[in-house]
């Protein structure tokens, strides 16, 4: 019998357990990214999916904070989604267990006007509110501190937050913390003029008419998502739908019906018009 060398050395227990976990097959997940399951999107991202250990910025278009938050909630739910039946490692995230918590850092300043996160609404997007732990901060300094502390502790499965001002240095700091711990950090950036940042990706999320079933009822939210910046990747623009039951993203189908297509164009023009108006 060969004695593992680690036991002989008088190392502390945590290190020994860590070492054993590394030696056992299948206990450490080596995947570093969670794919969307959409080849069009995944091919734009350098690792074939959204990287785990990285800072991702989600920027809402004007009047689209709820859409951007919805996109974040959908991403978080997607991280947790179970792998498809019969496949060991499939399209879904599946890396995290259901009991692991998500930390959402919400500043008490500046965000009040948009209302508060509603647990039943999160549940309707497939994200169980019991997984979420809300951290309320009163000052900007505390917000960044809480986010970094949550990342460094290695306790949550993912960290999300709302940060209005983030300079390059602070964003580098947060990105490094996310890289070190291998945890995804999703930041909502409701800012008018965005500074340059160290984020791995920057998404801009706008509203779009929801997907309807054949009776004309809303069944899936749809967002106009554009990947504005992506390190080592390509930018792109898509209309993404999210299925809250399967936790799956899909691209909005091209509209074959000319009447609908006409209306969709109109809505796009109207949205563009409003944006111009806002600017």
């Amino acid at each position, binding site marked *: 019998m060969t004695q593992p060398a680690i036991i002989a050395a008088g190392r502390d227990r945590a290190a020994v357990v860590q070492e054993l976990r590394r030696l056992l097959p299948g206990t450490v997940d080596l995947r570093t990214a969670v794919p969307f399951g959409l080849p069009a999107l995944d091919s734009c991202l350098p690792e074939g999916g959204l990287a785990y250990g990285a800072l991702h910025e989600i920027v809402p278009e004007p009047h689209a*904070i709820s859409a951007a938050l919805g996109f974040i909630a959908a991403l978080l739910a997607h991280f947790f989604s179970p792998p498809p039946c019969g496949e060991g490692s499939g399209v879904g995230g599946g890396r995290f267990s259901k*009991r692991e918590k998500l930390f959402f850092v919400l500043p008490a300043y500046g965000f009040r006007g948009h209302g508060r996160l509603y647990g039943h*609404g999160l549940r309707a997007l497939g994200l169980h509110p019991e997984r979420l732990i809300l951290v309320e*901060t009163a000052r900007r300094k505390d917000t960044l501190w809480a986010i970094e502390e949550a990342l460094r502790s290695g306790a949550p499965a993912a960290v999300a937050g709302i940060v209005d001002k983030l300079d390059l240095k602070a964003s580098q700091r947060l990105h490094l913390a996310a890289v070190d711990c291998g945890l995804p950090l999703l930041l909502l950036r409701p800012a008018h003029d965005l500074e340059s940042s160290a984020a791995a990706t920057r998404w801009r999320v706008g509203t779009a008419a929801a997907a309807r079933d054949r009776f004309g009822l809303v069944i899936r939210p749809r967002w106009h998502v554009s990947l504005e910046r992506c390190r080592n990747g390509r930018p792109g623009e898509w209309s993404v739908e999210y299925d809250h039951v399967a936790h799956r993203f899909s691209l909005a189908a091209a509209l074959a019906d000319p009447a609908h297509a006409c209306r969709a164009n109109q809505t796009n023009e109207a949205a563009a018009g409003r944006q111009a108006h806002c600017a």
Partner: protein
Amino acid sequence: MLAAQTKQTKQQPADKPIAPDRPFVLAVASAGGPRIAAMNEAAEAAGLAVGEPLADARAKAGFLQVRAADPVADDAALRRLTLWATRYTPTASRYDEASGADGFFLDVEGASHLFGGEDKLVADLAARLHRFDLPVRLAVADTAGAAWAASRFHVQNPCILPPGRQAEALAPLPVEALRLAPDTCATLRRLGFKTVGALLDKPRAPFAARFSRELLRRLDQALGRIDEPLIPIVAPPVYHSLRYLLEPVVTQDAVVALASRLMQTLAHVLTRDDVGARVLKLSLYRVDGEVKTLDIALTLPTRSVPHVARLMALKLESAAATDDAGFGFEAVGLAVTRAEPMPARQTELTSAGLEDRTERCAALIDKLQQRLGPSSVRRFEAVASHIPERAERLAAVNGAALQSSPPEAAKDTQADAQTDAPTRPLLLLPHAEPAEDVMALVPEGPPRRFRWRGTTYEIEHAEGPERIATEWRRAPPVSAHSRVSGNPDRLCEDRERQALTRDYYLVEDSGGHRFWLFRQGLFDRETQNATWFVHGLFA
């Protein structure tokens, strides 16, 4: 039991300097003019007595300095002193009103040997109080009542009654030593019972018949026949560890280092008993008798020394407790005021340390709470209500929530996910905001256009209504009456409005913004002019 009676805990208001060597009294207003509440030695020498009318006292003493007594400040000072006295034993309780409110009891049973015996403890206490300039009378006895009596009326000042001989010691003391009401004492004296000893060998029945229950109760308490409940000034800790320092410490680092060393000693005991600390209390005893306490609550029971040290550092930073260290802290105590079972468990190799994560989660929450405040970390808790704003509240995160059983939660999610469409908004406005210029079909049509926060939205698609009525138990009782009369009472208008039925619509405008609107009130049945509100935003 040790009783300490301080003669001059009474606070002196400092508006005008007083001469300490001349007669000085504190006066309290009473029926028939002000009376003396407390006095100094010079006044005592002049033949004054506590309770005497102030007018008589002035006549007797000639020159008299008078200030108004401040019972609130007295109480605070006594509390401070009693807190300080917890450096000797965790169970310290101040005198209540019946005992004179001018001293404290210490339960030194099991604590005196730490100081080398009762006599050494008493000497140490006397020396320290003397340094605070407090004249004090101390007594140690088997019972609180006997100690109180001995501290007031025994000839020796630090007086230690031998165990089991309370009756002998108390016999020569006057009846006032039994902590009785003044009129009871007066009646006893009139009947010729001048000392406690006179009462001891008499049959009890006549006393019980002629006096209030108080007399025999106090007698029994002093002799240890019945227990005397005392209320400790701080809840007695489950585990306690205290360290006296030769040199006082001032800096935060030193305090944290000491606290972690104390935690180390506690950790052994906690491990032995299979429990972990949920609430910790750090007491810092300042050289000048001030005591600072810091409470630290933990999400999960813990025995980890570094974790507690980190929390202490954060707490000290935010509380700025070491800012006014004065001449430094001469003793530091750490107590576990709440402990919970924390059985040893097997580390799992294969599940990638789920328990580990839960523990780290709890540690993170503790840390966040220390800096951001106890109510900053919260979780959603569903409430059984159909009214959207009442259907949920934010609750504190506790250990149970962190360890919530996953299978149930999973089932729950699946059951919910069966519903086809998202029917609840992602963002809920704290208060429903009125939508203006709403164009909708009367009586029950969906809205076509509305204005909210200065923007007009053309509605392309509306789903609904989802009708949510007030819960019957919240409906105002007057509603039936006013509905008939059609003239609602002004006072009840607000509640009336709350009680109206709401028709919720999911609407989508031409730009793809999705809102949750409701119309308040049913036409003709509840109101004549229904108003529209925006209540939430969908993803």
